[in-house]
């Protein structure tokens, strides 16, 4: 910290000299940070959207970087994490262009892609918007270049909304490369906030700042409106462009939805040193398969639970900083491949086995909860969604098992009062088997039309596989409007 303050002080002094001696020196070598801030500022925007679920809505803002001539903006995936936020709950995207002198400009935008492989998301100005101002976008071009340890670095980011989205610049020096599923570079000094670009001494954009420590992606955290974590406990790590450049080229497009490949090994465990020695794999990075999903690509290729993978496509596995990272690196490598790609894994099952090659053809990953369609039974206060692979997997049911899954409950609502729980899988409603979300929605609405105040009896399968009969009494008051569709 002390060192970085010193650097900043130095930068300010140099700035003063430069003003005094402007005709004598070029901007580039006298005031690199000031020049960089001005150069980068037009490329820094805020990305704003409304996360609206069936019960409430909230506006979120994060830092974004313009990366395309047409206003394509990349921002941290954690703002729109698929693990938390279903596809249809993100609305009213805006690209906010800050200004030092005027009000911010808001551009209507659309979500282009959530790229789980690189941890980035993308928005683009809405081509159908009639109110968007004409903007001359100034994209940042990332380059695959990494300075040496000790070389200077700079980062330019935006302060939170409460500080007027002012651009700020920081300086640091390369400190150490770290190994892991997402390679990260440790710096000595300060980086700007999450989602900010990082530059080398030449001013080339060489990476961006990911989530870390107590740094969140939000630029307007309502719980801590005056918090400035990027100032008081700055980021110390960045992701090099080499890790995400391929996510930008070809440019992401909403017309080409991401298809993530899948091998069908649900659990992978990096061998620790002790186990590696025990099975004769000293100094060989290796991963043990914890569970092969029946009828998955891995299963059909003949991989077995407890097989130990020692090579991928003939190459030794990549080592992480700790054993647990070997499997994450492997899993991420597979994730970055394409459906239909063929992967050759070299495995042993027991100590002393002759390694055997298993060839797996990657298939499309099963549907995830965030893309499942939903329906809100408003009068009883529960939201159901489609059953997806993970629901049947957890319950040890065949993937063909039918039903719908409770995705949300209104606190204190009739369903919550009847002890219905999130993740319960509804297999039967009012004596009729539940087949899918469409049938459920239709059956529910028909039942409500015929029995405006009828109790609803659900049979649910809990996460532990136990079943339960839930008798939900409708609310006493008027206004039983039946369910409302919330799905796509």
């Amino acid at each position, binding site marked *: 910290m002390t060192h970085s303050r010193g650097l900043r002080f130095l930068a300010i002094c140099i700035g003063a000299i430069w003003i005094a001696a402007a005709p004598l020196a070029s901007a580039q070598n006298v005031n690199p940070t000031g020049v960089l801030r001005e150069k980068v500022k037009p490329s820094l925007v805020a990305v704003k959207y409304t996360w609206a679920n069936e019960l409430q809505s909230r506006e979120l803002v994060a830092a974004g970087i313009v990366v395309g001539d047409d206003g394509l903006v990349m921002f941290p995936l954690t703002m729109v994490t698929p693990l938390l936020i279903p596809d249809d709950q993100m609305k009213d995207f805006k690209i906010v262009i800050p200004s030092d002198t005027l009000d911010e400009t808001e551009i209507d935008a659309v979500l282009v892609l959530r790229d789980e492989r690189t941890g980035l998301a993308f928005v683009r100005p809405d081509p159908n918007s009639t109110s968007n101002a004409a903007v001359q976008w100034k994209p940042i071009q990332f380059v695959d270049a990494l300075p040496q340890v000790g070389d200077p670095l700079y980062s330019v980011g935006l302060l939170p909304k409460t500080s007027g989205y002012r651009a700020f610049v920081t300086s640091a020096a390369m400190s150490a490369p770290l190994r892991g599923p997402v390679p990260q570079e440790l710096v000595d000094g300060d980086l700007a906030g999450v989602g900010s670009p990082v530059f080398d001494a030449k001013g080339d954009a060489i990476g961006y700042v990911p989530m870390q420590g107590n740094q969140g992606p939000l630029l307007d955290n309502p719980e801590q409106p005056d918090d400035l974590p990027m100032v008081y406990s700055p980021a110390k790590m960045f992701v090099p462009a080499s890790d995400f450049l391929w996510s930008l080229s070809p440019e992401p497009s909403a017309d080409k939805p991401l298809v993530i490949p899948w091998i069908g090994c*649900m*659990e992978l*465990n990096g061998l*620790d040193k*002790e*186990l590696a*020695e*025990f*099975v004769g794999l000293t100094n060989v990075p290796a991963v*043990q398969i*914890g*569970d092969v999903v029946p009828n998955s690509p891995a299963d059909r290729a003949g991989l077995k*639970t*407890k097989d130990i993978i020692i090579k991928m496509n003939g190459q030794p596995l990549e080592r992480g900083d700790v054993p647990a990272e070997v499997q994450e690196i492997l899993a991420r490598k597979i994730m970055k491949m394409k459906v239909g790609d063929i992967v050759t894994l070299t495995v042993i099952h027991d100590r002393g086995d002759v390694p055997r090659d298993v060839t797996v053809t990657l298939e499309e990953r099963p549907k995830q909860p965030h893309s499942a369609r939903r329906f809100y039974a408003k009068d009883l206060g529960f939201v159901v969604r489609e059953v997806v692979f993970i629901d049947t*997997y*957890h*319950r*040890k049911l065949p993937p063909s098992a039918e039903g719908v899954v409770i995705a949300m409950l209104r606190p204190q609502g009739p369903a919550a009062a009847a002890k219905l729980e999130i993740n319960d899988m509804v297999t*039967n409603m*009012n*004596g009729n088997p539940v087949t899918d979300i469409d049938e459920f929605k239709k059956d529910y609405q028909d039942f409500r039309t015929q029995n405006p105040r009828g*109790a609803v*009896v659900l*049979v649910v399968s809990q996460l*532990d*596989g*136990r*079943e*339960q*009969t839930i*008798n939900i009494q409708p609310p006493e008051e008027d206004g039983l409007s039946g369910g409302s569709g919330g799905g796509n």
Partner: protein
Amino acid sequence: MKHLVALLFCSIQSVLLAGCQGVAEPYPQATPQRVTAVIAKISPAVVRVDVAIAEYKDGKQNLIRGNGSGVIIDDQGRILTNYHVAGRAVEIYVILANQERVPAHLIGDDHWTDLAIIQMDPDAVRKRQITFSYAPLGESSTLQVGQDVMAFGTPYGLARTVTRGSISNIDRTLYDAMDEMNIDGYETGDFSNWIQMDVPINPGNSGGPLVDLSGNVVGINTRGGGQNLNFAIPIDTAKPVIRAILQSATKTKKGTVTRSDLGMDLLPLHELESFYDVGIDQGVLIDSVDRIGPAADAGARSQDILLSVNGVPTNVRFPEELAAVRRRLAVLPVGQPITMTVKREKQILNLTAIPVPLEGNLGEEKAFSHWGVTLRQVTRPYAVTNQLDDVSGVWITSESEGEPVERAQLQIGDVIHSINSKPVKDLAGFEDLYNHSIKQKDDRVLLEVQRGRDTFDAVLEVKKYAPATEPGDS
């Protein structure tokens, strides 16, 4: 408001009694004479129970000291108390009304009813010529709401404490709170309802007798709901448990109650009769069928209505009726086929099931100190609720920091399926393989471990991380 209701009831009753001279009292009242007579009769049979209970924590067996109450029930010096007082006790002393302190031991216990029987050491009693009396067991089925009762015990260790109040309810089910009622994870209350009373009891009263004004034990004080809301186990629930424990106990094995199980959850049908198209007070809903168990083997399904077992109706309309049906199912002979008559939609089906012995979720637990771990047997219910493929293996309940199991990054809840590639069937099987490994002086041990759906190998660095203590003390 409750006070007001109780007072009103008392005053109306007084008027009625006054107007009905010569009519027998429905139950003996707490007159000063009766109260002193009951105290004189019962007090010499009430003991304070000081225990050291085995608790498995941090990879070791530890002793937890505590105290409760008990009542001597025969001339052999046998004492009835709560499971949560003396069950799992490895060291017991009782303090009699005459303040003599006598060693005792556990005869048997039953967590399902929260009861345990201990016995004073006969040699100590004889040698020290200790005298005591025992309390007669009455009947709880004839208790009436409003009846005066007295509690004897040692709240907060304060021996020879007597409190007084009346019965508030004779058939209380704590059905909705069953999960929260368990004793350190051991199920309790499935097979009985409770006596609710306003008699003040506090921690330490547990295991002491609830006595009517005839001086008979009608319940065992067990749970406090706070202030004037307390619960006792009816003595009619306790009597068969006492018999079963005493019959099954031997010098080397503690007594237990053998019950059978069909592996299914039942749900009262109240408000669901028309939905399932059954008559009022007909059958009980099978809410869930264990993935592994007799009901599943018999082809029973959740949503079947169980109408009868071996022709005897199993009607449960209200939660209060559930314990009685569970008790009836629990006495079906293990291993002998029974007929479950179920209604499935419009059909009536007769299914044949073979009851298995009832097990709780928590199996037997032991410490294996050389590896720094405590483990439990995987029981059938544990396997069912944890989605295990079968009823085998042992699971980690605690670990000692810095010792082999913790060093191998195993976690509480992990199931161990094999040691050095030899399968672990149960806790005894694990113990054999563990002892063998220690005898072999294995430096390293290979375990196969299951964590959720994940199966992996782990190596214990025994030589490097085992504690300095002598091995073999499991």
